[in-house]
């Protein structure tokens, strides 16, 4: 059966069908991400002072990934334009770069950014014990400067068994710079280049800890929203890469030989989805990495 209106416009809509289809789908996607973003806004506005962390993510890596996604948005629109101008080889090159960009983006997320978080430890100190850990928190200094207080001590956990073993009574942590030198004015605001954990070891009594865990989704509201939204976004990137790969393979060439405009339209529709994924990232990046 021949699918109608793949290249010619349907008279009542003035558009070929897939174009209407993808925009309806993107409309539903706006609501999907809209729901998650509005939850983010709600959770963040209601977070007590100092509870919403800053500077936990790697900004240069996030910026690089943003640039990669923008580059792929340019190349995918160039791939479409090449097909419109009936240049199959150029299409293959541009589409190949787009696919590569998508894979790099995902690799950086899954092989570098996320595992690094899973390997990072943080302990929220009980209200009554904050004074005891003042040398690591520097809350007097922060109060003097009118800044929100710190309640978490973070770094590299030496004794992982402490997470599960109840007989281990304390956490042994190689401190992050912010907790190693909390009254240093340089630590008042997040850094562009991430600082490695220090040699300074702190022993934190489990009895003083409200809650402690690795930087997993359950660690805090911040990480729960971060992993949910970037996870869903990552799945969209994966979906886009799979569709692009399909259109890039010989199947695409076969369609091009039969009806080049049909392939161009498929690429346009897949490209619209890809631009939307880029558009979501434009909001994700500052909200989670920078602010």
């Amino acid at each position, binding site marked *: 059966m021949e699918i*109608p*209106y793949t290249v*010619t*416009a*349907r*008279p*009542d*809509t*003035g*558009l070929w069908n897939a*174009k*209407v289809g993808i*925009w*309806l789908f993107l*409309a539903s996607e*706006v*609501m999907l991400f*809209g*729901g998650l973003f*509005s*939850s983010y*806004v*709600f959770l963040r*506005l*209601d977070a007590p002072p100092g509870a919403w962390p800053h500077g936990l993510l790697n*900004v240069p890596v996030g*910026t690089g990934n*943003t*640039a990669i996604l*923008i*580059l792929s*948005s*340019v190349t995918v*629109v*160039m791939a479409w*334009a090449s097909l*419109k*101008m*009936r240049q199959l080889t150029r299409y293959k090159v541009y589409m190949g770069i787009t696919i590569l960009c998508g894979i790099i983006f995902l690799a950086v997320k899954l092989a570098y950014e996320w595992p690094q978080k899973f390997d990072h430890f943080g302990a929220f100190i009980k209200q009554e014990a904050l004074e005891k850990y003042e040398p690591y928190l520097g809350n007097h200094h922060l109060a003097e400067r009118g800044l929100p207080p710190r309640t978490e001590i973070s770094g590299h956990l030496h004794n992982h068994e402490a997470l599960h073993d109840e007989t281990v009574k304390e956490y042994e942590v190689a401190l992050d710079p912010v907790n190693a030198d909390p009254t240093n004015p340089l630590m008042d*605001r*997040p850094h*562009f280049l991430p600082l490695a954990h220090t040699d300074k070891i702190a022993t934190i009594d489990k009895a003083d800890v409200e809650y402690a865990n690795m930087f997993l989704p359950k660690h805090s509201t911040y990480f729960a929203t971060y992993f949910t939204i970037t996870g869903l976004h990552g799945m969209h990137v994966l979906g886009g890469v799979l569709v692009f790969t399909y259109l890039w393979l010989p199947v695409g060439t076969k369609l091009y030989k039969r009806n080049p*405009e049909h392939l161009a339209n498929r690429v346009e529709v897949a*490209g*619209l989805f890809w*631009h*939307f994924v*880029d*558009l979501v990232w*434009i*909001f994700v*990046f*500052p*909200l989670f990495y*920078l*602010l």
Partner: protein
Amino acid sequence: MDQPHDPLMAETATATAGEASHDEHAAHDVSKHIRAYVLVGLTLIVFTGITVALSYVNFGTQKANVAVAMLVATFKAGLVAVIFMHLSSEKRMIYRILIFTVFFVLGLFFLTYLAWYDPITR
């Protein structure tokens, strides 16, 4: 929706009438836009740098910093939508879909605002 055309007739008509000339026209049209695509890509990367730089500037309150970053992000998103997604010249049908989308997504954020402001128990 209310056009009297027979859709099949219309399709064959456009397909035969303007295949060759339409193709040439489209190719010429597209080549004109390529410069714009590259320029928009560069602008987006520059503004990513600006967003990062502005996040280290203290605008007084954290809320002000968020507002500035969202303003830049909205500008970037607008560029993507208008140039890359061809919204600068789309058919009316697409705008109709998007008007509903904008209405409902704003409604969604308004609900969030109501829940946070909590006018009933506050």
